[in-house]
């Protein structure tokens, strides 16, 4: 019985925080100015507890399990949530329903924790829904904006559709193998057409959440309509969590069907990178721009996933850590600017360096990392992903990926050029960034540099798998 408390410790802590916020909401005693630091402190505590007293083990006959890799993944997600609470604090402070927002966000986080730890398809499905539905509600949080409601509506409808196909896949799989347990399923897979169809149905649900082309169409509308904090959460935390569980599902459960998913990943990653890049080239709105560029980034994650060895897993986990720092830094700057001036177009950023050097440098660092320029962490992240993908020897494939990196360089540098070099008579006025947002941006910047310069971070992730 004691094991249960320790093995599910992360989930229990998040649940406790959710209830705490619920009581605070009922009590109605706290203003945003005091509440937000309190929440940030709780999230920090949640992050720090993840490093101590962890235990591996199975619970409930294998429905829930935990190991060191899963704990690292959970810590990465906790870190992301903490950073969002910091970098978006200017927007959060104005929110009339602050406790609800975090109750929803933490519920989604709880869902992700369960999802990563699930050892059973049914458990996986339930936790996936828990990780999705609260986010749809969060997308609606700009209550006075119509686009925000539209985003929420589109998200819930698309998710429902995708869930339908997922459930179809799960039931076919149950019919074909007679089990829902991951541990037992692997031995029963033989690659029959029925199982393949089931697998493709299952896979599309992941592809939908990761916005892999052609299942990505919801992404741009939802990202643009949602508040920046929600967009950041969707594009970083949600994607990270889904990528983690997809790794487990592909590399452990469906390993016997590797011949199929290797080709599947290859085709979809190429389409995804190209489409994401082509759309990102044309975007004017910074949020839409980041949305499409994040689609292209997912294409790279899929490249790393094609490697079924430990390099595949470690490169993806490392890249997601790096991606959290880089993308949240970019979103943080966008959030600071949009919450104070309402400006969201890249053209508005022209000449920003003269008025806001700090924000400009953080943005430049983030975009350098996203583009994969050394010595930022993004370079090493992409390097490891491509190395993992190239392990099979299909060099034309890695060649296409590398070409896409070069294309992405163009549009990332275009933003940097407007910020630093383009002249503008009326640049964005000086923005006063709050203290916690500054801290968050600095943490992201430090993370981008540290994860690139200190090799032990990657070494540690790789060491877990041995």
């Amino acid at each position, binding site marked *: 019985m004691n094991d249960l408390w320790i093995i599910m410790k992360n989930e229990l802590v998040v649940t406790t925080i959710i209830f705490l916020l619920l009581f605070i909401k009922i009590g109605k005693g706290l203003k945003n100015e005091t509440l937000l630091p309190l929440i940030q402190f709780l999230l920090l505590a949640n992050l720090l507890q993840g490093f101590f007293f962890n235990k591996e083990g199975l619970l409930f006959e294998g429905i829930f399990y935990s190991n060191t890799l899963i704990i690292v993944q959970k810590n990465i997600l906790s870190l992301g949530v903490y950073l969002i609470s910091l970098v978006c604090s200017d927007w959060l402070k104005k929110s009339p329903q602050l406790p609800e927002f975090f109750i929803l966000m933490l519920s989604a986080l709880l869902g992700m924790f369960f999802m990563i730890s699930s050892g059973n398809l049914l458990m996986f499905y339930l936790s996936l829904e828990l990780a999705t539905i609260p986010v749809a509600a969060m997308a609606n949080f700009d209550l006075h904006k119509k686009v925000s409601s539209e985003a929420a509506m*589109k998200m819930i409808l*698309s998710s429902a559709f995708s869930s339908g196909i997922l459930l179809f896949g799960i039931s076919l799989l149950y019919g074909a193998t007679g089990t829902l347990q991951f541990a037992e399923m692997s031995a029963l897979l033989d690659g029959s057409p029925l199982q393949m169809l089931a697998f493709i149905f299952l896979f599309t649900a992941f592809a*939908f959440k990761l916005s892999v082309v*052609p299942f990505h169409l919801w992404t741009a*509308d939802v990202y643009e309509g949602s508040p920046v904090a929600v967009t950041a959460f969707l594009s970083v935390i949600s994607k990270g969590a889904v990528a983690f569980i997809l790794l487990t599902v592909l590399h452990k459960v469906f390993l016997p069907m590797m011949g199929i998913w290797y080709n599947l990943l290859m085709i979809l990653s190429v389409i995804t990178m190209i489409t994401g890049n082509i759309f990102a*080239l044309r975007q004017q709105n910074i949020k839409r721009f980041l949305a499409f560029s994040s689609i292209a980034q997912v294409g790279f994650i899929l490249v790393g996933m094609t490697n079924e060895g430990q390099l595949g897993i470690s490169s993806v986990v490392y890249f997601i850590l790096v991606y959290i720092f880089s993308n949240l830094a970019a979103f943080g700057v966008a959030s600071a600017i949009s919450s104070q001036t309402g400006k969201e177009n890249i053209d508005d950023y022209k000449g920003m360096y003269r008025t806001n050097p700090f924000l400009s440098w953080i943005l430049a660092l983030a975009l350098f990392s996203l583009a994969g320029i050394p010595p930022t962490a993004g370079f*090493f992240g992409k390097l490891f992903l491509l190395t993992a993908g190239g392990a099979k020897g299909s060099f034309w494939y890695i060649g296409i990926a590398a070409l896409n990196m070069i294309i992405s360089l163009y549009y990332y540098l275009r933003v940097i050029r407007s910020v630093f070099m383009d002249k503008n008579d009326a640049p964005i006025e000086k923005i006063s960034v709050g203290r916690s947002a500054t801290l968050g941006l600095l943490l992201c910047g430090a993370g981008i540099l540290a994860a690139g310069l200190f090799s032990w971070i990657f070494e540690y992730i790789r060491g877990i798998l041995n």
Partner: protein
Amino acid sequence: MPSIATIALIPLLPFAGFVLLGIFGRTALKKPAGYLGTALMLASCILALYTAYGYFFDFGKIHGAYQKLVPFQMTWLEFSKDVSINIGFILDPLSAMMLVVVTFISLMVHIYSLSYMKGEERFGTYYAFLGLFTFSMLGLVLSSNIFQIYIFWELVGVSSFLLIGFYYDKPSAVAACKKAFIVTRFADLGFLIGILVLSYYGGTLDFGTLIARLTDPSSTQMQAAVNASFLGASALTWGAVLVFIGGAGKSAMFPLHIWLPDAMEGPTPVSALIHAATMVVAGVYLVARLFPVFAISVPGALHVVAYIGVVSAMIAAVIACTQTDIKRVLAYSTMSQIGFMMFALGVSGYGGEAGLGYSASLFHLFTHAMFKALLFLGAGSVIHFVHSNEMKDMGGLRKLMPVTHITFLIACLAIAGVPPFAGFFSKEEILLAASRGNTGIYYMALITSGLTAFYMFRLYFRIFWNKEAGHDAHHGKEGGFALLFPLVLLALCAAGAGFIPFGEYVSSDGTPLHSEFDPVFSIAPVALGVAGILLASWFYLRANDRADRVAASLKGLYTAAYNKFYIDELYLFITKKVLFNLVGRPAAWIDRNIVDGAVNLVGNETVAFSKLIKKLQSGKVQQYAIVFLGGVLVLAVLFIYIWH
């Protein structure tokens, strides 16, 4: 053995100075910038002396030989089990000696600059750059692997660039720093390729392992490197020669020396530190670091080193005889002396008595650092006094600047090889090694050392004697304590450093090398040196036209040497006329018309294509669902029916 922190602090203290002064040097720390930088440098120097002392007299010697120690090593980036990039420190006689030289000279320059650079607008920035340079140089000598050394090699180049161009409002300084950067860049390309070749065949970046593998004829790596051949030479020879090209660029060896005289546009203390005592000997250091590979496995490459070295030494000495800018004379003299160090390595063998050239070369590096830094600082003191670099504005200064005069004289005697000053001992060893190794080189070196005595005393007499200078009103006093203290200290070193039994401590294989002093052998070089001095005094002690008449009778040679043998013009011809017209213009045309055209085409097509598929992104959820379903079906059909 000192703790890792002690060794790490040696380079990190100057780095801390760079960071602090780089950020606050123009604001809060502008006033105390000099004292802060000097204090950090002093601490670093003390730690370096402590470490070197401990190494040489306490823990370094095991079983009668000095060991290569790697007290600290960490993996920085691991690509695979076999290929990783490390960061580490190496401690061996070579690096311990260099630590002392670099920190000591740097400290002297720091102190000297307190007075020399006083009142500069960018005083704090100057000290920040000095800190950066010292950090990079110390990192370079401590590097335990070939990749790390490359990083610091480039950093050294950058700080040299920054310091040459310190007076960035002076067009000649800007041109000089660009020239230095570009010329060394070409050499560094050779260095990089050399590193790649050596580490590819050696299968490692680590110095110890690399040397062990590439000197053992039975190892698989060695055999692969010897068997792979390109244009008639083995891969190993190419690797060694390419690495040497990198070293030759940094050390201003012929024909890559053209940047060094122009680099004198930087502040004089910088010239003393970077372009005389430390950075320019990095090439010598590099060859010495990889010396076992050169000496045991690729004697052919070592011949290249020897001949380039002696040719550079001779050409530079001839040019130095004709220059009238005192700093340029010193610059060519530096090049000439480095040529001595290079060919000493080139004629040396590995281990025991045969390794005499190796010890001699590094001994000369050590003594040269002392007296050349002294010469530059003395020249700085003179320039500070008369506000000119030209010899014609000087003369008769011996009574006006007594301290500078005596210290400068000691340095000149040292470089001319007059016993018992430091340069005598190191140069004797070099000549002895040359006479044992290669007679042709020995005679060229002998002539060059006579020329050295001549041009150095030409400089000395033109500055301090020649005419009786009227005491101009605008001539101030000789500098204060900060200016003179380094001169005196360095003069003591230049006078006494020769008595160190250097071969006992630094030798090619770590075992002590007992060098015996042979008075008979010394007769020829000393006699030539004295003859050079006498000739110089006959020409220049009093004002007369003897020198001009001799120059007129040797008109062709004199003009050629005065114009530095037209090597700069040759480079200009090759780059401007040949490269720009034959490569640059066609490349520009292709770039404008074909590459840009293709890029524009791709761009336009991409935009057209994205307009086409933009219709998918309609904003209608029902349409999204249809695409989604379509995607599922296509994948299902593809994988279930077609792929199998």
